[in-house]
C-alpha cells in the first residue's frame, strides 16, 4: 500500500474583479490535476519555475490549504476533507520544513520551546520527558543541546534550518514536505543539510516530497522526480531516467539551462523565450505550447494526456522524444 496517493488534485484561488468586489474573475489554477503516489521511505522531487504551483501542491497535500478538487489518501484513508481533531492527529504523520530559516522560527521563543511545540500541540509526552527528548533531537540534527535556551537570532542560517528539521522530526512523522529547504543556504552549508536529511530518512524510513527549483540538488536527493509547469505535471520518472532520458521538451529546456561547473563544455542549450503565462488565463491545449519549440496546431487544440511511455516514465506531450541534454 502506498503511503500517500494523490489523485487529480486541484487548488484554485478565486480572484475578484477590481471594481466590483463581489464579482468573481477567472480563478488562478495554481494546481490543476496533480496525481502522484509515494511509498514509505521514498523521496519525490518536485521541480519547476517559480509560479508553476509546486509549493501550492506541497501545502495542499499537507492540508495547509483546502483542496478545490481531487482526493488525498494517506495510508489508504481518504483525508481530503479531514478537519478539526482528525486533522490535528493526522499532522503527527505529516510535517513540513520551510524555505526561510528566518521567517519560520518565532524570534521570541527559545529554540527549546520551538522544537517542543509539536509535543505541546499534540499533547504527547515522550518517554523521559519533553526536555530530554528535545535535547536528543538537537543532538541528532547536529546542534549543541546546551543551546536549549538560546533564541533563533543567535544561530546561523544553516543552524536554523537544522532547528526546523528537528521540529519536523519531533513526532516521528512518516512524510515531510520540504519546501526549498536549502535554497537560502550557502553551498558549503547546503551539503550539510542535505546529508542530514538523507541520514534521518535512512534511520526513520521517512518519505520526502522535496520541492526545489535547483535541478542539481533534486537529482542528488530524489528517487523520483516530477516536473511541473503552470499547475500541471509535464513529466514524472525515476531520477536516472528523467535526467538521462528526458522526453518532455520542457524538461529538456529546463535542464539545458542549468549551468554546470565545467568550463568550455559544449552543451546544447534549448532557449525558452518569454515568461510563464498567467495561470489565470492559461493557454488552450497544452499549457507549455506558447514557449515550446516543437508546438503545432494540435498542441493548441488538444490537451496532451499523461502517458506512461516507459515503465514508470510518464510524459504529457503530443510529441515526446528522448533528447539527452546534460
Amino acid at each position, binding site marked *: 500500500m502506498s503511503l500517500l496517493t494523490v489523485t487529480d488534485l486541484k487548488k484554485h484561488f478565486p480572484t475578484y474583479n477590481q471594481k466590483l468586489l463581489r464579482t468573481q474573475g477567472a480563478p488562478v489554477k495554481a494546481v490543476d490535476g496533480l496525481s502522484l503516489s509515494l511509498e514509505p521511505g521514498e523521496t519525490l522531487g518536485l521541480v519547476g*519555475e*517559480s509560479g508553476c504551483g509546486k509549493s501550492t501542491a506541497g501545502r495542499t497535500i499537507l492540508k495547509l490549504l483546502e483542496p478545490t478538487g481531487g482526493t488525498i489518501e494517506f495510508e489508504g484513508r481518504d483525508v481530503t476533507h479531514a478537519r478539526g481533531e482528525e486533522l490535528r492527529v493526522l499532522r503527527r504523520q505529516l510535517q513540513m520544513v520551510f524555505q526561510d530559516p528566518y521567517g519560520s522560527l518565532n524570534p521570541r521563543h527559545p529554540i527549546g520551546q520551538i522544537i517542543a511545540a509539536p509535543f505541546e500541540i499534540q499533547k504527547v509526552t515522550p518517554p523521559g520527558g519533553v526536555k530530554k527528548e528535545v535535547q536528543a533531537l538537537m543532538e541528532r540534527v547536529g546542534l549543541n543541546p546546551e543551546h536549549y535556551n538560546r533564541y533563533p537570532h543567535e544561530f*546561523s542560517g*544553516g*543552524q536554523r534550518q537544522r532547528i526546523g528539521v528537528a521540529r519536523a522530526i519531533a513526532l516521528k512523522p512518516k512524510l515531510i514536505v520540504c519546501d526549498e529547504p536549502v535554497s537560502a543556504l*550557502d*553551498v*558549503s*552549508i*547546503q*551539503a*550539510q543539510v*542535505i*546529508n542530514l536529511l*538523507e541520514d534521518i530518512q535512512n534511520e526513520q524510513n521517512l518519505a520526502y516530497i522535496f520541492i526545489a*527549483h535547483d*535541478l*542539481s*540538488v533534486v*537529482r*542528488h*536527493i530524489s528517487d523520483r522526480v516530477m516536473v511541473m509547469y503552470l499547475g500541471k505535471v509535464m513529466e514524472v520518472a525515476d531520477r*536516472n531516467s528523467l*535526467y538521462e532520458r528526458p522526453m518532455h521538451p520542457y524538461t529538456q*529546456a*529546463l*535542464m*539545458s*539551462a*542549468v*549551468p*554546470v*561547473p*565545467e*568550463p*568550455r563544455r559544449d552543451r546544447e*542549450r534549448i*532557449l*525558452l*523565450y*518569454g*515568461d*510563464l503565462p498567467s495561470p489565470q488565463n492559461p493557454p488552450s491545449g497544452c499549457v507549455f505550447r506558447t514557449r515550446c519549440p516543437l508546438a503545432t496546431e494540435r498542441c493548441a487544440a488538444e490537451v496532451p494526456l499523461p502517458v506512461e511511455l516507459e515503465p514508470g516514465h510518464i510524459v504529457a506531450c503530443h510529441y515526446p522524444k528522448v533528447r539527452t541534454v*546534460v
Partner: protein
Amino acid sequence: MTNTNELEPTPVELLESKGTRVTRGQTSAAPDKFLRIEDLHVHFPTDDGLVKAVDGLTFDLEKGTTLGIVGESGSGKSVTSLAVMGLHRGTRARVSGHIWLDGEDLLQVSDEELRGLRGRKMAMIFQDPLSALHPYYTIGAQLTEAIQVHEKVSKKAAKTTVVDMLGRVGIPNPEKRYDQYPHEFSGGMRQRAMIGMALINNPELLIADEPTTALDVTVQAQILDLMRDLQAEFGSAIIMITHDLGVVAEIANDVLVMYGGRCVEYAEVDDLFHQPDHPYTWGLLSSMPRLDRLKQDRLVPVAGNPPSLINVPPGCAFNPRCAFKEFSPRPCNVDDPALLESYPKHDSRCHIPVPKRAEIFTERVAPKL
C-alpha cells in the same frame, strides 16, 4: 613548481626562495591595466568591533574580459564591488588601498568627479531589481534620467535611445514598455531593464552583483547570453559576482575565490575547475550536487560555518574548516599564508606545498567530484 622544500621555511625564506609573492607591485603610479585593485581594505567600525569585510585584495581586469568573484555570504564580494563604485562614501566604512580605473585612482577623486564616472564609465547591476528600481517612476523615465545625468540631450532624443536599448536587452514591445512601471514587469524583464539602464551610457566596466540569483534557470540562461552578447558588442570589462560555480564556468575568463575578506585562489577559469589549488575551492566543488553526473551517496560538505569578520581566525582564516591542514608543514592556526603563485597565472593562499596539494587533489578530492 615552488614550495618543494620539505623543511619548514621561515617566512622570510619563503618569500625569497619561493619566488613570486603575489603583491603585484606596490607602486602608486597609475598602472597600465584597465582596472587594478591594489591592497583594498574595507573596514566597518561597529559596536561589536571592527568588521574587516575586505582585507587586502589585489586584482587586475582588462577590457573585454570577465572576472568571476565567488565566495559565500559575508566573504566580501559585494563590499568590494560597492567600493569600486564609490558607494561606501558617506558611510562609516574605512576604505584604503587603490582602485585604478583607466589610470585614475577612484579613492582619490572628488565626489563630483566620481558622479561623472558612475553610470557612464562604470555601472552596476544589482541582485534584486525590484528594490533597485524606483516604484514611482516608469521604466522609461528611469532610463532617460540615466542618460540626462551625463549628457545634455533632449527628452525626445533620449527616448529614442532608451526604446532602442530596451529592445536590445530583449524586452518585447519596448515602446509600450517605456511607459510602464516596474511592478508591471516580470522578474526577468525587470532584470533586463536594469541591465539596459546599466548599459545605456556604454560603460567600460560593468559590475554584476548576483544578477541572476533571484531568477529561474531558464531566465538566467537568457540573461547570461545577453551579457555575453553585449560584451562582445561593447567590449566592456565585467565583474561577475556570484556564489554559483556553474555561472562562473559559463561566463568568466578568470576567477577569484574569496574567503573571509581575502582572495584565497585566483586562476583562469579552466585551471580553476581542472586543477583547483586551494582546500576551500575543493570544499566548494565537492559540496555541490551536480546536474551532469550522479555523485556517490553523500556530498562532502565543508565543516563548520563561515568565519565572523570581526574575529577572523588567526593564521589562515580557513584553518578551522580545512580538512587537509594535517598536510601543512606549518601551524595553520598561527601563520598567515601569503598569496603565492602556484602555477603560471594561478595563485593561492595555502601553506601546504604545491606538489602535495596537486597530489591531494588528484587522489582524494577529484574522485569524489
